[in-house]
């Protein structure tokens, strides 16, 4: 039985197409994916991302513990700084990709993928032996909204009354929300999963519902479903756990080494990544652009021009912002060079394509 977020009734009332995702019943689209996608690229959209998981790590060893389980380096981080990175298995496979917010000295807020919540929390608990920390699993408390798009800043400031102009990219702050949610402290960060400027806002269910209603009633912010969240993140080359990262796909294979700080003294999976960087990996994630409009989908076979199977599509779409059929695919290393001619089997036919950069559309972050 899928869980419902605190906004479930509102999605149904808006006539959203609801579908299971990551253990939740989530809105895929309200009107259609293309309109919602374009709203985020051109104006502003709001997503219910309350399905995401939250874990708070505090205690005398909190920083040392985060450094141990997380690939990025949070040492000497300024307060409010946010890091993207992964938790890895010792063999370099990915447990999950996540955001780590530094909320205070030895106080970290971790945001994990909905589908991985149980697995991640179990994994984190297993690793805590020898660390004096408190691990507080807060997923049931927090609702989360993502307000995304070039107009997100003005919408958040004017419609929600939350000051956010001064927030730098990948930083967060807490805000006391006095008015209707007395005494509540929310977290707001300049982050997102769309390649546009935007904010993610974490608060109680009550706060989240009220904020959602204000945004929808304002008419300045389109409700957007997970359908366009996927097309948006895909075309700017952001990975989705389960597609581009998995227990079998390391960040080195996925081209995400920049988020793995191998100069850190240690973290789980470091030796495996060092080995992969030194000796190379058998498979790499690439972008492929097809000459035709047929759409490569997750799991379709990637072939050499001669028809030999050399990999698999991880995500593919007819890219909305550039009007091309493109995909990310995991292929044998020797076929990963830009410009390599490959082909993708789509149902009964084979379509020629070329290896291109994984980013099909440029990000428009406000840094």
């Amino acid at each position, binding site marked *: 039985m899928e869980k419902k977020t605190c906004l479930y009734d509102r999605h149904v009332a808006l006539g959203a197409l609801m579908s299971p995702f990551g253990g939740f019943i989530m809105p*895929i*689209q309200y009107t259609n*994916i293309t309109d919602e996608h374009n709203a985020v690229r051109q104006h502003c959209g709001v997503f219910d991302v309350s399905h995401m998981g939250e874990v708070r790590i505090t205690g005398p060893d909190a920083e040392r513990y985060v450094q141990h389980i997380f690939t990025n380096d949070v040492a000497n981080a300024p307060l409010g700084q946010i890091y993207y990175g992964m938790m890895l298995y010792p063999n370099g496979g990915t447990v999950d990709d996540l955001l780590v917010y530094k909320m205070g000295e030895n106080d970290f807020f971790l945001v994990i993928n909905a589908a991985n919540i149980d697995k991640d929390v179990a994994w984190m608990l297993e690793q805590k032996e020898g660390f004096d920390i408190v691990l507080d699993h807060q997923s049931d408390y927090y609702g989360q909204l993502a307000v995304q798009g070039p107009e997100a800043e003005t919408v958040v400031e004017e419609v929600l009354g939350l000051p956010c102009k001064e927030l730098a990219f990948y930083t967060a702050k807490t805000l006391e929300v006095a008015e209707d949610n007395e005494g509540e402290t929310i977290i707001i960060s300049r982050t997102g999963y769309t390649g546009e400027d935007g904010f993610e806002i974490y608060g109680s269910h009550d706060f989240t519902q009220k904020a959602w209603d204000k945004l929808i009633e304002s008419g300045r912010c389109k409700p957007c479903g997970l*359908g366009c969240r996927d097309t948006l993140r895909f075309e700017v080359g952001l990975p989705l756990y389960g597609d581009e990262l998995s227990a079998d796909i390391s960040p080195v294979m996925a081209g995400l080494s920049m988020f793995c700080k191998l100069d850190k003294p240690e973290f789980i999976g470091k030796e495996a990544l060092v080995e992969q960087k030194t000796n190379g990996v058998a498979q790499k994630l690439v972008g492929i652009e097809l000459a035709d*409009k047929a*759409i490569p*989908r997750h799991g379709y076979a990637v072939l050499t021009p001669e028809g030999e199977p050399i990999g698999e599509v991880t995500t593919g*779409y*007819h890219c909305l912002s550039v009007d091309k059929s493109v995909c990310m695919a995991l292929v044998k290393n020797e076929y990963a060079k830009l410009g390599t001619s490959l082909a993708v089997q789509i*149902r009964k036919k084979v379509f020629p394509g070329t290896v291109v950069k994984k980013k099909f559309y440029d990000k428009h972050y406000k840094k």
Partner: protein
Amino acid sequence: MANFEAGLYYSESHEYVRVEGEFGYIGISDYAQHALGNVVYVDMPEVDDEVTAGEEFGAVESVKAASDLIAPVSGTVVEINEALEDEPELLNKDAFGNWIIKVQLSDPAELDSLMDVEAYKKHCEN
């Protein structure tokens, strides 16, 4: 709300056949195009291909997913709707006005197992 056009034969998988003499024009219903959302690609067979009732003969791709096209009747493809190659969204604009393939029917008796518009309406309501 979806439109339903009388005089056509419908399959449970939401394809229709418009019969003109020995030929059948096969497309997807308006109900189907609504359910699919924005169509971005139509994968069609080639002229002279054989299609078999109950078997896949192509696909309609929306942004989100690919949906197989299942042949409601058997026959030989005599024409494909080439306009859909450049403008797949025509299926969204007018599903009944834009057939996908034209086949020479090999077994017109197969039409008897398809639904008329009233039966198809009920099928969609369930």
